[in-house]
């Protein structure tokens, strides 16, 4: 089982790094931001598998923190760096 956990973690890491191609490629900024979404799920899965493989329950806490904060960067992107039409040129 130990080998299976590690192999799957390696596989997911490969997935993650392959997904970074989309960040480089774009074409829109939102496509690049999908990296945050990808990290939010994939790295949680990797951490869960590593926690089981290394028998380190503390890694579940790391995964929990990732899961809780997965949204923050993407929300910052939508609310700050990628404003909607009305947010422009507010004379104030």
């Amino acid at each position, binding site marked *: 089982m130990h080998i299976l956990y590690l192999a799957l973690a390696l596989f997911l890491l490969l997935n993650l790094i392959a997904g970074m191609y989309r960040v480089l490629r774009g074409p829109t900024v939102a496509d690049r931001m999908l990296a945050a979404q990808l990290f939010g799920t994939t790295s949680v899965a990797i951490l869960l598998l590593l926690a089981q493989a290394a028998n380190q329950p503390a890694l579940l*806490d790391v995964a929990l923190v990732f899961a809780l904060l997965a949204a923050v960067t993407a929300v910052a992107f939508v*609310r*700050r760096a990628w*404003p909607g039409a009305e*947010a422009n040129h507010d004379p*104030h």
Partner: protein
Amino acid sequence: MSITNPATGKAFRWLVMLLLSAIGGWLAYVMLVLSRSPAGLGDQVAAQLNTTGVGNPVTAVLLNFRGYDTLLEMAVLLIALLGVWSLGGLADYQDTAPGPTLDTLSRVLAPMLIMVAAYLLWVGADAPGGAFQAGSVLGAAGVLLQLAGWRLGDCFSGMLLRVVLISGLGLFILVGAGLLLIGGAFLQYPPALAGGLILLIETAATLTIGATLAALFLGNRPGLGPKKADPEKTEPDHGNQHP
């Protein structure tokens, strides 16, 4: 489009590369030598762990053996925040309404973030976790609430916020000075009290770190101008919405 410094010529760049590869090679050699050197302070920490009042060696180092470092680190955070505030405000973002999805996300996640921060604080005594991790989670909670449009109400952005911002550093110094008074040395906890004192200091440090990080994200000095500040510190139903 070149993204490099136009003032640096090609020859200069090659020179830098040459020098840096020398530095890199030297560092790699140092790593090789050091990685064969005998153990560091791990054994000493392990030997003294039962006097610290906590079971996690990293927390023991942070709050007990090298409490000075953590104390000064709180001071650095405070100075960074003072630096940001003294630079004067930037124009606030023109926030649009957050929309129901983001609004609900912030409302549902806020209590969960507080739970997890408290959990990390508690678990830090015996397992990975502690004031810095919990404070970072609180700070991130503050960032999320700010992004969802929450702002601290006026009654909280004044004195109360400032008290929270210095409570970590202040309590640390107070405890240290109290220990001096009762005859110990600065920040040398008696083993019987160490666990409780560390939990107390860590709680204050968590609140301070969280509030400072959230305030650093805001970038503006709260209390100046219309409703600005970090919201995660207080009961958010007093948090004012803007606009």
